[in-house]
């Protein structure tokens, strides 16, 4: 209750600040936008923009809000989040509402140009028009920044936006998400947050060779920017099937729970997005994720006598056990739990290899400010040793997953160097 009161006070304070920003921006606004500038509409837009984590791509660390500039490494090359401040030249201030909604719903830029699907319009197409317009209204209150950002830094052949006509034909269906009347309002809200606003599948659903979501792999994990976004379906071993609704809520609100501590892109998402969402919305996401189909999910652990397991155990005792403990139990919110962890048992060990080679910075949130970090072990463990210790943790403490090879480690080490 007290928290609710405090957040209301914060919202009011923010509202006042927005009012001042609005006055400054008024001269650049088309006249028809003014009616949409009610406090409720702006606050809703701000919340939706937070939930969709627009800043994640459209704000440089330390840069002006929404002025663009974050480079996204895609399998096809680099794309840079554009300037979406209300500046009429560099930003989207001159866009009409229809043009803004078309960008979100159909991946069309101004005058019909195609957007690259790093902008998650395949998810945003499911967003309601009202929500899109609320985000639009909020973005119009941001300080305009007159800095041009070149979004497209792809290699020459891939950068023909003309290609996207065909990509869209093959991979993209425009259309809003229809509520499922057979399910609860909470479930429907959760699905809307996961599939539309939160665009979880952008990372957590693996992509075809053309970079499109594979429907058959819905939320079963994907590799992006050198991280594995793990399976978040209700699968018991590789997904979050063992997590309760409360566990999922705790993770999204605070950055960690008894099973996991967020790092990498998910740490950013939690810091900027889900930790600021309402308790009801986060719970809706949890309820929906718990309802997702759990693919068959059993595996047999490697025998402790396997040479990699023998070596891995010794390496684990020397390097890992002081924090993660002999039993792989870790310490909640401080040292990741390895036993029963879905991320540890993911088919693809990319994130695990990366954590051992480069270290890992856990997220810090208001509720859990510690932000614990794991140091790099790249300098003291060879490729074969990293592979052995990861194979060990993936097949101990009740875990089971395919072995990691020195070759896999070597490739990621080369990339990290």
């Amino acid at each position, binding site marked *: 209750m007290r928290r609710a009161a405090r957040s209301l006070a914060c919202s009011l304070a923010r509202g006042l600040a927005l009012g001042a920003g609005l006055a400054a921006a008024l001269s650049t606004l088309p006249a028809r936008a003014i009616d949409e500038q009610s406090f409720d509409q702006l606050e809703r837009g701000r919340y939706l923009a937070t939930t969709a984590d627009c800043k994640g791509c459209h704000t440089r660390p330390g840069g002006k809000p929404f002025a663009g500039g974050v480079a996204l490494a895609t399998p096809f090359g680099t794309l840079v989040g554009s300037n979406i401040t209300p500046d009429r030249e560099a930003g989207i201030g001159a866009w009409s509402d229809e043009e803004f909604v078309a960008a979100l719903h159909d991946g069309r830029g101004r005058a019909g140009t195609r957007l690259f699907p790093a902008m998650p319009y395949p998810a945003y197409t499911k967003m309601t028009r009202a929500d899109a317009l609320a985000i639009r209204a909020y973005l119009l209150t941001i300080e305009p920044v007159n800095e041009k950002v070149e979004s497209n830094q792809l290699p020459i052949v891939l950068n023909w936006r003309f290609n996207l006509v065909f990509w869209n034909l093959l991979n993209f269906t425009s259309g809003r998400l229809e509520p499922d009347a057979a399910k609860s309002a909470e479930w429907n809200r959760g699905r809307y947050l996961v599939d539309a606003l939160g665009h979880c599948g952008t990372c957590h659903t693996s992509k075809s060779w053309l970079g499109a979501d594979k429907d058959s792999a819905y939320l079963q994990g994907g590799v992006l920017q050198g991280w594995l976004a793990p399976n978040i379906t209700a699968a018991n071993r590789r997904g979050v099937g063992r997590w309760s609704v409360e566990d999922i809520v705790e993770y999204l609100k605070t950055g960690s729970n008894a099973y996991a501590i967020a790092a990498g892109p998910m740490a950013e998402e939690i810091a900027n997005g889900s930790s600021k969402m309402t308790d009801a919305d986060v719970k809706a996401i949890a309820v929906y994720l718990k309802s997702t189909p759990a693919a068959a999910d059993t595996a047999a652990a490697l025998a402790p006598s396997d040479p990699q397991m023998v070596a891995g155990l010794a390496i684990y005792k020397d390097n890992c056990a*002081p924090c993660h403990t002999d039993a792989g139990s870790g310490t909640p919110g401080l040292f990741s739990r390895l036993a029963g962890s879905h991320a540890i048992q993911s088919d693809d060990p990319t994130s695990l290899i990366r954590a051992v080679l480069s270290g890992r910075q856990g997220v810090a949130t208001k509720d859990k400010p510690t932000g614990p970090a794991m*140091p790099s072990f790249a300098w003291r463990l060879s490729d074969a040793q990293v592979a052995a210790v990861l194979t060990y943790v993936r097949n101990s403490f009740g875990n089971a997953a395919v072995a990691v090879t020195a070759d896999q480690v070597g490739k990621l080490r080369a990339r990290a160097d």
Partner: protein
Amino acid sequence: MARRLPAKDVAIIGFGLSSAILANELTDQGLEVVAIERGPWRDTATHFNVGYMPDELRYAVRLDLFLRPAQETLTFRNNVSETALPIRQFGSFLPGDGVGGAAVHWNGQTWRFNPTDFRLKSHLTERYGAAKIPDELSIQDWGTTYDEMERFYDQFEYLCGISGKAGNLNGTIQPGGNPFEGPRKRDYPLPPMQMTYAPTMFAEAARAVGCHPFPCPSANLSQPYINPLGVRMGQCSFCGFCERFGCANYSKASAQTTILPVLMRKANFEARTECEVLKVNLDGSGKRATGVSYVDSSGVEWEQPAELVLICAYGLHNVRMLLLSGIGRPYDPATREGTVGRNYAYQTTAGIQLFFDDKIFNPFIAAGALGQSADDFNGDSFDHADLDFVGGGGISCIPTNGRPISNRPVPPGTPRWGAKWKQATKDNYLRSFGFSTQGSSYAAHGNYLDLDPTYTDRLGRPLMRMTFDFPDNDIRMSNYVMDKMEAIAKAMKPRQYVMARRAKPYSIVPYQSTHNTGGAIMGGDPKTSVVNKYLQSWDVPNIFVIGASAFPQNAGYNPTGTVGALAFLAADAIRTKYLKSPGPLVPT
């Protein structure tokens, strides 16, 4: 010409644990705070990497985390008849450096001083008569009391997750705790650490000779902990790399593991590292500080104006900062007048090493505060009426490590190198341990700190000069406690035990203790103290001086618990009193 920066509400000199406590409390109050630290930024995963932290050569022998004499050193002499010479390699004590300060490299033994320690002169006079206090000593009362300190000790212990067992809860003696401690309102936040063999055996022997042993209160955590700021700490893994090392697994209390995650998120806090404060600036009247001047790592000089200046460096460096800034009147041992530099004190240590044939102690399973202590002969726990000294010492068996370079216990008579030394190491490494007394160090008229007339630092400022020798009183005290310890040693039936008694003159070379106290002492009288009971300068009321520099004399305990409590005490005084009415908090 220094470049002038925009003013802050508070400028803090140094960014160790006291500084972090004050910065966190005052930023909570809404103040704009900057901490200026001459050493580097330090973070657990980056700088205390579990992969290379247990590097004894780098950290314990080459002293990687410590202040370099080239940065700052001091000159030393035993008494005024000698000419002080610069310390070119720190030995007897090791001042820290960098973010987190000495609480990065400490062992973690976290004590409260006894109620009688805070009113030492009054208490001894009341109990034994004024004539009991030897003429050589200049002991004083603190100006505060244990009862006033209790809630600040409590705050510090809960911040750090101290693991221990209360001995006195609201006046009721608790079995298993220290029956001689002052009453505490509640128990420690965590239970004591699990004991290893040597301290367990020591405790049995101590009990057998009539002492009351108890687990040493420890900042190496017995369990995972979430402190009142929401910061999480881990469980100590008994790695045996505490003193001289940073903790790699978040289980030793430090600024890094208790406060910085919260403090560094605050928009109204800023830390400037690798910036060395030159002096505190005063206005024309000399009664008001206007800020500090500092030089950054590229040699550029800056002026940081501030409404309030907190001197929170290592105790010795606090005193030098006052002397360099011309704040307060320097102490003169000839006239015994003046205050700054007065009552420098130390710690009177001595110990016994035991060798066994039939017992294995595995000394590498250890932690900096993992052990047992007995306070039967500490402070004024025992009757001094028929004794020729005042003071006392804690007796502790805290085998902190079994590190391979420096932990080579061999009996006297063993060659210092070669095959026989190697064989003796093999025979004794697992079968030996020591226990020690950490005795009080009572201030004496001849022990003090001032500016050296000859030597300067790399910035051209005079070095500080330390004049110190053990008072005869303290040597008598130490020998008395050692006699008691000998009985404990005999009760353990070792093959052999070796007594290392403390003797004059004090030597600056072998390591003894980094418990340098006094020089900017607190008290009730501006003629005999530098700061009042709130650690506020008597001379310049918008300066507070926080650290062991405030101890009027040192007790038979590690100082960190009391330093932490004083930081909370000063923060409370600033928040609840000074900000409402800036000016002297104690009328003169």
